[in-house]
């Protein structure tokens, strides 16, 4: 189940442009780590290289190490498809498959992995939807298209879809940025519940959100325009928000940025 992640000297590129420079950090299992920092500093880029989604972008590459419980996910023997099966991802904008029903959306990952047993699929669908706090709202319309839900419901559907395959790690890129405060709270509660079972990394622009849900916070920053983003510091969330080591971090969280 939940596994730890160790990132060592990770440099990430889009073609020739280096977007992120020398990131080293560890994410302990069953905890929430928040990535914060100004726009364009490379938070999404780092997050996407944790499950090898980064290389999907044409021309994108990276070097350095990303270890999942000690095993390098970039080793030449490792299949990116199996990495993505064990490290789930939730995107900024809810992206349920529009041609699939709610239930089919939830079990899509399981179907891909080859599960055909109807009973098992139904059970997983219910368990995952309950896990994502969506069951009560959709249990009567499981066969309707996933696109017919509200934005917040769609995002929880995407979370249900991600946890249905029981990943070791869950990556979330600004999962609440398109949602209203109530849906946001629902998802934050959900994150707090999910961390009992999963290792979670979440990118957020919302400082209060980082403070509320995360155990550890990583602050990224840009040295300047056209420069690669860097990890400034990573520490316990309380420490970062009350007494950060770096001046840049303090400026950023106190809103004196730029």
């Amino acid at each position, binding site marked *: 189940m939940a596994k730890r992640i160790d990132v060592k000297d990770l440099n990430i590129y889009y073609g020739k442009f280096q977007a992120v420079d020398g990131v080293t950090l560890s994410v302990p299992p069953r905890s929430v780590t928040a990535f914060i920092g100004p726009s364009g500093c490379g938070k999404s880029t780092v997050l996407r290289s944790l499950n090898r989604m980064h290389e999907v972008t044409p021309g994108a590459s990276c070097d350095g190490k990303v270890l999942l419980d000690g095993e390098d996910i970039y080793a030449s023997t490792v299949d990116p498809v199996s990495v993505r099966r064990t490290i789930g991802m939730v*995107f900024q904008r809810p992206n*349920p*498959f529009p*041609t699939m029903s709610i239930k089919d959306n939830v079990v899509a990952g399981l179907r*891909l992995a080859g599960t055909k047993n109807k009973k098992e699929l139904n059970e997983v669908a219910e368990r995952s939807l309950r896990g994502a706090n969506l069951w009560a709202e959709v249990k009567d319309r499981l066969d309707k298209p996933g*696109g017919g839900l509200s934005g917040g419901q769609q995002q929880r559907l*995407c979370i249900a879809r*991600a946890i249905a395959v029981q990943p070791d790690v869950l990556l979330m890129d600004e999962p609440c940025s398109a949602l209203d405060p109530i849906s946001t709270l629902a998802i934050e509660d959900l994150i707090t519940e999910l961390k009992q079972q999963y290792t979670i990394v979440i990118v957020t622009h919302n400082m209060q959100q980082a403070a509320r849900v995360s155990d550890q916070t990583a602050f990224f920053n840009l040295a300047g325009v056209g420069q690669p983003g860097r990890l400034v510091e990573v520490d316990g969330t309380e420490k970062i928000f009350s007494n950060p080591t770096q001046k840049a971090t303090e400026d950023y969280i106190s809103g004196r940025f730029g």
Partner: protein
Amino acid sequence: MVRPGDRIFRSLTSGAGVFIVVLIAAIGIFLLLRAIPSLQRDNVNFLLSRDWVTSDPANLRFGIIDLLWVTVATSVVALVLATPVALGIALFLTQYAPRKLARSLAYVVDLLAAVPSIIFGLWGIQVLAPQLLPFAEWLNEYLGWIPIFALGNVSTGGGGNIFISGVVLAVMILPIITAVSREIFERTPTAHVEGALALGATKWEVVRTTVLPFGKAGFISAAMLGLGRALGETIALTTILSATDAQPNYTIFDGGATFASRIALGSAEFNDNLTVGAYIAAGLVLFLITFAVNALARTVVAGKKEYA
């Protein structure tokens, strides 16, 4: 308040829209008006007769049943051959091929559309037919027990049959189907593709779960566009198909004529209004079929709107 610019633009665009509708209606009415007198003097059943004797305006005997068979059969053969190939090419170009290769390959496919029909016709009967003869004979011999592969009403050796015509038409409609489906597959939202990838989908699974469902309606209408083109193709088929009066055996080795090739072949006798009217009646049927195919394509696409 309506701004003058808006008003001018609106009248221009609605004018253009009305113009198209009027144009189509005018074509339909023209065909109908010219066809009716001949249809009234037709001595056989227009829809069911196999005859086509129009040289004597005083004794018109014309029916479309054979034309309908050959037209539909050639187009269906073309569609059956072209759609899987077009689907494969479009998927390869958008999902698998490296960018540079994709661009030049797409260009080559588009180039096919620039080859004049007459060249396709000559190529079909002179080059393709002899090449495909062993295969055609093999079909005849070993699959002949399936009615559509049995011997036709013209000699298989001559090659002037529905099979060769269908293959040539398939090549001719390949570019349009490929180009349209390529554009549609390219527009698969990145969010959906990445959603599938993040669940651990392989390339093919991404295609199956996102690209194909997203592009299905578009692909169907691309195929219908191709079908419309195949139904109306004239010169290539006039060159290829062997004329015959023999009863069709309803196999892909039948010869004969399509609506369009019959009209083209008849142009020598366009000297009497009643004779011409007979051909126009045939043209009208082709017009209606093409219209129906397009309408069908549209309904298919509209039916998928809620998922777009």
